[in-house]
């Protein structure tokens, strides 16, 4: 157990479990309360405490590069459930909890606008359970426990998406769609874990990694990997498995979209990295083959097809949702390279994509509160009426395209570098084509924001953006710029994460 730098030692020793348990226990008072304000305060304090724990864990793994292991119930791994933090998931936990805090600050005005008063505290309660589940997925070192946390995070998410039904009834079908797809994904994952358990007799990931090194040719193990990859692919919205995502993002309440876009698919993506590189040894032939001949072509297809689909959307959030599918393709491409540089670029893009989509969806939430704007043609003249919000949106869009001095440029740069090192010219071409498509679909929105004049009668409706939205929005937008110019910290985090993923795969 590492000595903490931030928290008192007694708390630091239990930081891995507190990160998951604090949001979980705080969700119960939030469920009883009748007022939304108190529910919001509880949710925010839960997320802040989780963030503290994540910072603590992050610093501890940074300080000595050590792996923090926490035995739940005092049962030592591999027999008991283990929480395990290394360079890879420490970064993810920081991203997850940080995004949760920012999204929650944004939540108060947004939720008051979109959710009925009697449902608000239940809404925050469901959010806390979802946060706790996502943190559990990211932190656990036990394959079956990961499935349980995956379900804990998914079920409240379905409910959260369905809460968008107040404004648009299509939220209900979207949520049901996601429920069916998510349940299939989780089932595939647990079947895969079952195969691994059959072959090895253990569920602990570190133990699995140790045993799987010698089981390359085992057909059961290969089946297990295939099932796990498909199951998690559904959760992470990889290209042909992404059909639930556009609807879920477009019709969920704004706050839920911000939170999902920055965290949920990222966590599933992390699990894919964990299984492909850590649990399964990357030097085993079938993993490399799967990454090169299955994941990479699908990633490239996703980058281009989803970007092209985004071009034809009329709903702004749907457009950005398709763009998210394309961006998930970038991450998968990095992973598909199977090299340390590739994984590092993928993780970097994961963090950066969270930064840019956070800004974009938050700005859309602000537009929706002030003017009820959902469609592209309704964005006309918003740049004049809400200059701060529109500027932040523009920064996010530029970052999405990959304009220099934004984080989007940095991750595409590293991705192209990794592809060139591999000699994959076609991947470079795909990245460039997809970026050009991104220019077009961002252009459609930006032109409406800034160039088209304000329609008659709109000007009188002008309302200021609430400060609780402006603060996280502008903060995130500036982060897009700051880390685009001073990229070293994020690149360093991504490289540490990739090293942790790949080097731990030797069964240590």
């Amino acid at each position, binding site marked *: 157990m590492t000595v903490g730098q931030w928290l008192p030692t007694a708390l630091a020793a*239990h930081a891995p*479990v507190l990160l998951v*348990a604090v949001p*979980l*226990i705080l*969700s*119960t*008072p939030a*469920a*009883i309360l009748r007022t939304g304000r108190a529910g919001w305060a509880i949710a925010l304090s839960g997320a802040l405490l989780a963030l503290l724990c994540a910072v603590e864990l992050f610093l501890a793994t940074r300080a000595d590069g050590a792996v923090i292991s*926490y*035995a*739940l*119930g*005092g049962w030592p791994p591999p027999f008991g459930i283990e929480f395990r933090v290394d360079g890879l998931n420490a970064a993810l936990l920081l991203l997850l909890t940080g995004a949760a805090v920012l999204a929650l600050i944004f939540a108060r005005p947004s939720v008051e606008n979109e959710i009925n008063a009697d449902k608000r505290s239940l809404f925050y*309660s469901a959010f806390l359970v979802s946060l706790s589940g996502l943190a559990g997925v990211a932190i656990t070192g036990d394959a079956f426990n990961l499935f349980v946390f995956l379900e804990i995070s998914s079920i409240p998410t379905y409910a959260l998406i369905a809460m968008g039904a107040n404004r648009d009834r299509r939220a209900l079908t979207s949520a049901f769609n996601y429920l069916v797809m998510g349940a299939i994904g989780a089932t595939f994952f647990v079947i895969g874990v079952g195969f691994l358990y059959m072959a090895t007799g253990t569920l602990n990931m570190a133990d699995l990694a140790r045993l799987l090194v010698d089981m390359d040719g085992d057909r059961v193990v290969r089946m297990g990997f295939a099932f796990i990859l498909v199951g998690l692919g559904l959760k992470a919205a990889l290209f042909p498995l992404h059909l639930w995502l556009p609807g879920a993002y477009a019709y969920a309440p704004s706050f839920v979209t911000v939170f999902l876009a920055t965290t949920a698919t990222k966590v599933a993506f992390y699990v894919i990295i964990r299984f492909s590189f850590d649990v399964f040894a990357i030097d085993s032939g079938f993993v490399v083959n799967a990454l090169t001949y299955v994941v990479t072509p699908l990633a490239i297809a996703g980058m281009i097809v989803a970007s092209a689909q985004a071009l034809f959307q009329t709903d702004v959030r749907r457009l950005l949702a398709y763009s998210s599918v394309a961006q998930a393709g970038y991450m998968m491409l990095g992973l598909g390279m199977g090299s340390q540089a590739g994984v590092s670029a993928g993780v970097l893009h994961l963090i950066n994509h969270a930064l840019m989509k956070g800004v974009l969806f938050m700005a859309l939430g602000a537009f929706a509160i002030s003017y009820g704007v959902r469609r592209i043609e309704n964005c006309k003249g918003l740049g004049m009426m809400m200059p701060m919000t529109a500027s932040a949106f523009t920064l996010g869009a530029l970052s999405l395209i990959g304009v220099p001095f934004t984080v989007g440029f940095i991750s595409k740069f590293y991705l192209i570098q990794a592809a060139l090192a591999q000699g994959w010219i076609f991947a470079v071409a795909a990245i460039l084509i997809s970026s050009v498509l991104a220019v077009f679909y961002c252009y459609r929105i930006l032109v409406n924001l800034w160039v088209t004049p304000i329609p008659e009668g709109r000007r009188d409706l002008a309302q200021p953006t609430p400060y609780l939205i402006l603060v996280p929005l502008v903060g995130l937008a500036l982060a897009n710029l700051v880390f685009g110019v001073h990229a070293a910290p994020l690149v360093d985090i991504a490289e540490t994460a990739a090293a942790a993923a790949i080097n731990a795969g030797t069964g240590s």
Partner: protein
Amino acid sequence: MTPHVVLRVVSKLLIPLIIVYGFYIHFHGEYSPGGGFQAGVVLASSIILYALIHGLDAARKAFPPYAARVGMALGAFIFAAVGFVTLIFGGDFFEYTVLHPDVSHGAGQHIGIIAVEIGVLMTVTCVMIAIFYAFSGRSPEIPDGDW
């Protein structure tokens, strides 16, 4: 008032038995198949039976929907709180051994499991009842006459 005398009398006889049986499954779950999940469903079935025979309004009076909501949250709270109590006693999360000094007989384990199962029982009972209320109390969006 209602013609179903037989049903009413039999249900009044059965409901206490169902409840006692539910608690039996719960507390015997340590030694035989059973536990909080199964017992919770059995307990909830007693309320559901009451609602089926005496009507939803009577059931809501006997077991208010808000109580179900509080019960769900309280059960989950008890479950998680056991973990925090073990932390306070100086163990790891859910390390029940620290709850009682008698380690050789695993007394702490017994205490911990029973406490956790009480949380599970409350949550499962209340969730089952809440689901029943939600479905049965739902009025169709299109009234039957409009079809």
